[in-house]
């Protein structure tokens, strides 16, 4: 059973299109993170959201934490080929020595 469900698992779009990736759970998290991973590399942290309803922007990327802190979304505006990669959400439950629970990941391909 996957505690954090990401959707979609695969996404192939044309340059310039918008997209949204979802990360859903029935559990409450004290914080949620989004990572991006390129082939042959480890994941790199993009953002951490902590407060329910919080919205953070990173250039063309917008991250939102659900009001109940059970879900999150990543929206990319005008996707570029450089956005291609594996996007992972990871939830941190309070009081568990900082262990993260990862979603399955969303593989994004942006075609020029």
């Amino acid at each position, binding site marked *: 059973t*996957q505690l*954090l469900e*990401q959707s979609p*698992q695969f996404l192939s779009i044309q340059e310039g299109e918008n997209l949204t990736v979802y990360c859903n759970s029935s559990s409450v998290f004290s*914080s949620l*993170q989004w990572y991006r991973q390129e082939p*042959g*590399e*480890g*994941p*790199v*942290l993009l953002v*951490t959201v902590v407060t329910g309803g919080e919205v953070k922007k990173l250039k063309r990327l917008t991250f939102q934490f659900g009001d109940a802190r059970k879900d999150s979304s990543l929206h990319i505006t005008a996707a570029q080929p450089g956005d291609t990669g594996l996007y*992972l959400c*990871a939830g941190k439950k309070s009081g568990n*020595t*900082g*262990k*993260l629970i*990862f*979603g*399955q*990941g969303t593989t994004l391909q942006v075609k020029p």
Partner: protein
Amino acid sequence: NAGVTQTPKFRILKIGQSMTLQCAQDMNHNYMYWYRQDPGMGLKLIYYSVGAGITDKGEVPNGYNVSRSTTEDFPLRLELAAPSQTSVYFCASREEGGFGANVLTFGAGSRLTVL
């Protein structure tokens, strides 16, 4: 700073062989983690450590062992390799508190194939 360094990057093992994946960090982080990544499954926590001399099991510890004799090093040992252990292994570390407590730094990964 080198960050988190993993060796080897690639390894092929025969069933029943043993090996150790090395992980070293030069950031003086107390917390260190070992994850495995399988296609479509995200990252699963194998073992973690909150400081030298302290280790604990994660979600999928069976078939693995770890030790933490120093702050810098956190090796992962496979005693009797099985095909189910074919995966990409990632080591990560973070600070104990403050803003850095939210930032996991990952190594580049070690791809292991068991035949």
